[in-house]
């Protein structure tokens, strides 16, 4: 089983963000949240006492807003709560402006062995448009610093920001690739109601066209490959051996328990049964509701939930396809039997051992392909 911990605090919300994150939470609010989180950790540890914990991912929000001690408190709680706690990979997400050498060292002391930095762009104009709090120079410096403390450093990029050009994308990715083992490249998605969406709708921010973004993404794939970072998932690139174990669990439908506000979990009655008959639950999105609800809960099963659904049969199979096709490993050819129509056949290729994956063109139009075969 994998564990996801959500730290919902941010200094400021980014212009494109619609995730569960809150700016301006008071120190008391933060304390209450961590207390609730630790309680949830304890209840989850009771519920999943027989599960071996393989990975931990501390995401946000901005986990690097926590002090070194607060972070250690959380990892210690995990180790104490889960009897079979033996993670190979513990990742923490950080932002450049809230990262420093001491903090990085305290992470290492707390057992964390992977850092993922939200760089997003190395063009200062893009960083301003996206509402980020760092500049390009600071991002590169902090990546270098992280590389001194950790072997396994990753960073995130967003493609499709206003000043992106193919040349800039190549230049920026080359600069980052020289410092890290792993890069995630996401496409900018305009989520409803975010400042960036509104400003784009008003014409104040001009974003690259759809075809332009498609070109940028393909440029990114080539640039990273040239630097030795292979595409092992539609948005993820790594040097051999540095693929993210944790994220891979999501795509292969491993069990995971998400702890914290708005966190998502997927698990079965037993470790073996989740794939065929799993449950997906999500926690409340509101901080207050989460904190109050968790305080009142006596067991993992009585925790407040925003959603809960059972996934089995055809739906489980659909999930396996939808998630598996994101990866280089693809899915077992058997479950695609009878689903691949002539219209989309050309987007599939062999992944060896009877498995099928999407071609590079296929990855670009994955939704359309999925809509055809699910």
């Amino acid at each position: 089983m994998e564990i996801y911990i959500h730290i919902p605090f941010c200094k400021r919300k980014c212009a494109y963000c619609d995730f569960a994150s809150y700016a301006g939470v008071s120190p008391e609010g933060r304390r209450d949240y961590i207390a609730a989180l630790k309680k949830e950790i304890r209840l989850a540890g009771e519920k999943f006492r027989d599960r071996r914990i393989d990975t931990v991912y501390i995401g946000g929000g901005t986990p690097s807003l926590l002090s070194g001690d607060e972070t250690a408190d959380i990892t210690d709680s995990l180790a104490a709560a889960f009897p079979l706690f033996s993670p190979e990979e513990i990742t923490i997400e950080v932002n450049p402006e809230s990262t420093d050498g001491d903090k990085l060292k305290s992470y290492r002391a707390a057992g964390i062995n992977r850092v993922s930095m939200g760089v997003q762009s190395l063009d200062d104009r893009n960083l301003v448009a996206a509402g980020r709090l760092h500049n390009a120079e600071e991002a590169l410096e902090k990546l270098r610093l992280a590389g001194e403390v950790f072997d396994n450093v990753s960073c995130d990029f967003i493609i499709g920001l206003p000043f992106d050009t193919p040349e800039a994308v190549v230049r920026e990715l080359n600069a980052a690739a020289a410092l890290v083992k792993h890069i995630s490249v996401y496409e900018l998605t305009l989520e409803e109601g975010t400042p960036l969406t509104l400003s784009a709708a008003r014409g104040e921010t001009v974003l690259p066209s759809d075809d332009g973004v498609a070109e940028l993404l393909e440029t990114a794939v080539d640039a990273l490959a040239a630097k030795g970072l292979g595409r092992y998932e539609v948005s993820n690139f790594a040097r051999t051996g540095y693929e993210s174990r944790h994220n891979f669990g999501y795509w292969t439908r491993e069990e995971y328990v998400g702890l914290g506000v708005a966190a998502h979990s997927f698990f079965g009655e037993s470790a073996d049964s989740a794939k065929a008959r799993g449950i997906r639950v999500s926690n409340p999105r509101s901080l207050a509701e989460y904190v109050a609800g968790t305080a009142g809960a006596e067991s993992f099963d009585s925790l407040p939930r925003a959603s809960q659904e059972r996934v089995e049969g055809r739906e489980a199979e659909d999930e396996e396809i939808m998630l598996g096709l994101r990866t280089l490993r693809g899915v077992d050819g058997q479950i695609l039997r009878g689903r691949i129509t002539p219209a989309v056949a050309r987007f599939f290729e062999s992944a060896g051992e009877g498995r099928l994956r999407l071609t590079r063109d296929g990855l670009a139009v994955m939704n359309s392909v999925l809509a055809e075969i699910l």
Partner: protein
Amino acid sequence: MCAISIDIILDSDYNNVNTFGKIPLRGRGEDALSLDKIRNFCIIAHIDHGKSTLADRLIEKTGTVSAREMQEQLLDNMDIEKERGITIKLQTCRLFYRHGDDEYVFNLIDTPGHVDFTYEVSRSLAACEGALLVVDATQGVEAQTLSNVYLALDNDLEILPVINKIDLASADVEGVCKEIEDIIGLDTSGCPKVSAKEGIGIDDVLAQIVEKLPPPKGDPDAPLKALIFDSYYDNYRGAISMVRIMDGTVRAGDRIKMCSTGKVFEVVEVGVYAPSMKPVSSLSAGEVGYIAASVKNVSDTAVGDTITGADRPTESPLKGYKKATPMVYTGIYPADGAKYNDLKEALLKLQLNDAALSFEPENSKALGFGFRCGFLGLLHMEIIEERLEREFDLDLITTAPGVSYHVTKTNGEKLIVDNPTNLPSPTEIDSIEEPMVKAVVYTPPEYVGQIMELCQDKRGIFVDMTYIDTARVQLTYRLPLNEIIYDFFDSLKSRTRGYASLDYEADGYEKSDLVRLDLLINGDMCDALSLIVHKDRAYARGRGIAEKLKEAIPRQLFEIPIQAAIGGKIIARETVKALRKDVLAKCYGGDISRKKKLLEKQKEGKKRMRRVGSVEVPSEAFVSILKVGDDN
């Protein structure tokens, strides 16, 4: 539908109401109110001249409905009628009026004003002896004023002009009276001058109805002879016939016979609209009301049929009406193919209420099963589509409206083609004739040039131009109907800033150089998009439609050529480029619900698509081509 949905409560014990003095409310029956105390009339007018408002005031003034219960435009009770401010279905209402010492019964039959509904107007006229001709004092005589007057004169109706909207600053009462005398030849001396909106002059109208309109004739003791001038389906009582009794008397319990089918029914209830349905003991010669006889099958109450007594039938059924001929045809398909039967049911029900609607099943490769429907005109078509969507909650796809062509094949065989798909191949066609109309446009003189240019553009042949006065001109053109239904109305409106009015009537068929324009999507012909157009128009139209389709069809996994073709020859081409990428939802923190939702949305969208070959075409694409004007 019809008067039953009006929720107006009269005194609950209708038969004992004594407000109306000695009028026996149970109907005329034995101690019958003499015929000369009855007036059956309708109100005719150009659209917007205030017909429905006047009807409201008459109802209000006679106390048929108290002010509290009065609801604006009482007789326009379909949602669409209220919203558009027009009358589509005819409605009737019985009013009681005291004139001097005498009590009178008025039967008011409201009529539609739009040119499309001439047929309905003629139905209501057949039930009347007189007509109020409402003319807007600010507008004067308009195209439909004239056509409705001619209809009324054809039916031997006495016409009482009523000048409306005299309260408006721009009213020119004298000028309009003169126009009525000059153009129509009606005497306007002493005619009522009113403001229906303000309630001015209504008493005068009521008095003149008694004085100037003739009472009905008929013999209450003769064999029953009742004209069905409308019918509709009531979920509880079955098909209800709205009738004008010409001769005889009908009561609950009577056995009646439909003259056209010979079928016999027992009368369950007879009544009047006041304006909600009120049962009475009998209806006699000269009266207007309804007959409910547990008729299950709507086709058994055909509008225009004569109802007579089963035991003592009349020897001379009424002539009935000339069946309305559809002028405009379109394919109507359920957006969800599974709703075919619902659509059929809905059309059947509407047809009962709308004798001018015709339909028959048709099958399209692209759209599946649907119906080829015939309408009186574009407005009629729009109204029916809207009623289907609103009253029956159906999602529809409609094909481009077309007309009915007479085709002579080279082997001498003659065909009538109202669906472009059925047009034989060019080599088999000897000639095609298209329906023509005589179009009359009334306009201020400054737009004459614009209108002539438009008519010329639309292949019109100039017939006549008359100056009615210095402010108005009547232009007459002979035009192909095909051009009128295309975008003529819109062009006319925009070129004359809404000042011109149009009326048209069928004017035979004319040989013409017509071709079928086909649209190919990814090489596959899409039957639902085929059109018959004049050869000279084909290129522009083909290009226009191909451009629209390019916008309407979303990018897909492959490049999609869109071609317009005439008989296998490609005349225009556009390309929908292949999709390069989808939006990539990340599965952040194991939240795969976002991605699932995105996919569901995509699949949902797919379901609403129609397949043409391997291409998914959204329903909107079929509609978008309706909006291709010659100007773009």
